[in-house]
């Protein structure tokens, strides 16, 4: 049978107009899409409102599926551990891995402390996280890398806050709904993070590539001191992230830096903590035009 659209719609004027109107609406739809697309590329925050509401609407279902996902991941871990050397093997390995990252972070902290002691009056306070929540989903079909977080404005989350897991930096909150928030992951190609080498004073930018790797670009070009296995931590420049949180491990050396694997892969993350912006006053000052007086 020929498909309905290949058959004449009959001699009825009304039916013919109906088909014609369908084509017109489809064309208008494409045009509307093009205009909206141009608008949202020009001003990416234009449609945050409806998107946040939609995110809130699916948050309960997403949380439920995240629970199942975490439980099944735990199950697979336990089975894998048992098959190899008893079920605690998997757990111990995870602990050792964490300890290794902690060690690198501690070294970085020690250095940071030494540097800060030189600067009078500047010290950091260890603050409690704003919220602890699950990553409830991600845009796994799109070339952009966003994740959805199960905490929102009601929990005190504000756009710009850093998100970290026990392993390291996950990303930064981009927009906030009432009970959910959208997080820009480190691997997104629009994400740039100032980092420094955990052992040494090499500073660099970690840029997402869109696939699961980060590109490390050194600020001071010269002899490339990196080698595979080097750990990068946040440097604190920019004011968003607290310095000394693990970010990435160098996997491969390139001309102007390195390719690095992220330490805190969102696929392996269960709970994440949203932390307060590190230097909020400095950020506000940077955003205020010089002509305006800073007001509280």
């Amino acid at each position, binding site marked *: 049978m020929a498909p309905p659209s290949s058959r004449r719609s009959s001699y009825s004027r009304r039916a013919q107009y109906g088909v014609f109107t369908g*084509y017109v609406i489809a064309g208008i739809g494409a045009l509307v899409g*093009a205009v909206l697309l141009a608008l*949202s*590329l020009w001003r990416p925050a234009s449609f945050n409102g409806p998107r946040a509401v939609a995110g809130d609407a699916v948050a309960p*279902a997403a949380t439920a599926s995240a629970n199942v996902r975490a439980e099944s991941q735990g199950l697979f871990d336990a089975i894998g551990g048992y098959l190899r050397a008893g079920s605690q093997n998997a757990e111990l390995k995870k602990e050792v891995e964490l300890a290794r990252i902690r060690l690198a972070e501690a070294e970085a902290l020690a250095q940071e402390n030494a540097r800060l002691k030189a600067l009078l009056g500047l010290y950091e306070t260890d603050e409690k996280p704003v919220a602890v929540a699950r990553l409830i989903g991600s845009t796994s079909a799109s070339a952009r890398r966003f994740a959805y977080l199960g905490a929102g404005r009601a929990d005190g989350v504000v756009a710009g806050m850093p998100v970290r897991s026990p392993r390291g930096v996950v990303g930064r909150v981009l927009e906030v709904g009432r009970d959910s928030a959208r997080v820009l992951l480190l691997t997104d190609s*629009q994400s740039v993070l100032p980092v420094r080498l955990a052992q040494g004073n090499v500073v660099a930018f970690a840029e997402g590539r869109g696939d699961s790797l980060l590109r490390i670009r050194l600020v001071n070009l010269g002899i490339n001191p990196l080698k595979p296995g080097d750990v990068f931590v946040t440097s604190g420049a920019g004011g968003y992230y607290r310095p000394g949180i693990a970010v990435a491990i160098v996997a491969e050396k390139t001309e102007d830096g390195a390719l690095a694997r992220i330490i805190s892969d969102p*696929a392996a993350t269960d709970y994440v903590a949203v932390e307060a912006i590190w230097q909020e006053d400095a950020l506000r000052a940077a955003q205020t035009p010089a002509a305006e007086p800073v007001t509280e």
Partner: protein
Amino acid sequence: MERTDPRSRRDAYGSRINRTHSPALAYAVPWGTILLASLLPLFPIASAAPVVPPIGLMTLVAWRLVRPGLMPVWAGLPLGAFDDLFSGQPFGSAILLWSLAMIAIEAIEIRFPWRSFVQDWLIAGAIVATYIVAAAVVSGAHLYAPLLAALLPQILLSLLLYPIIARMISILDRFRLLRIWMIG
């Protein structure tokens, strides 16, 4: 008659006596499944690279190809708007690309009215592959070569997934037309 064959007055859609198709079910199933499919890539995994096929678009294309004449040409406008809320793409990209996909299928159907499943698969594959690349281009991401390379597994996965989705749609199509509405 019923004594010799109890199913003599039934067909694949249920009893033919005293029952008819429910219009609500007949229209809710295709639109509902496409909306659900748009949500699906959100749930299973928080991945560091794009891996999951665009299941929303693939379901729309499958409904359009498996059951021509059911989805109107303009279906890309409302369904794309819904997909944009969750896909992470800039708002408007799915409205534009899904509308173009529906118009493209319409044009192909006028040129090739009689097709087998293999040709439908080719059409769906071409549309989904084009969509994935076009969506990456308009997504606002920096188009490094590694990002484009990361799209390849996604495209291959989509090609392999289409027959499964088409088969599921044909099962849902039979469910859609069950005679569950009592008349008289």
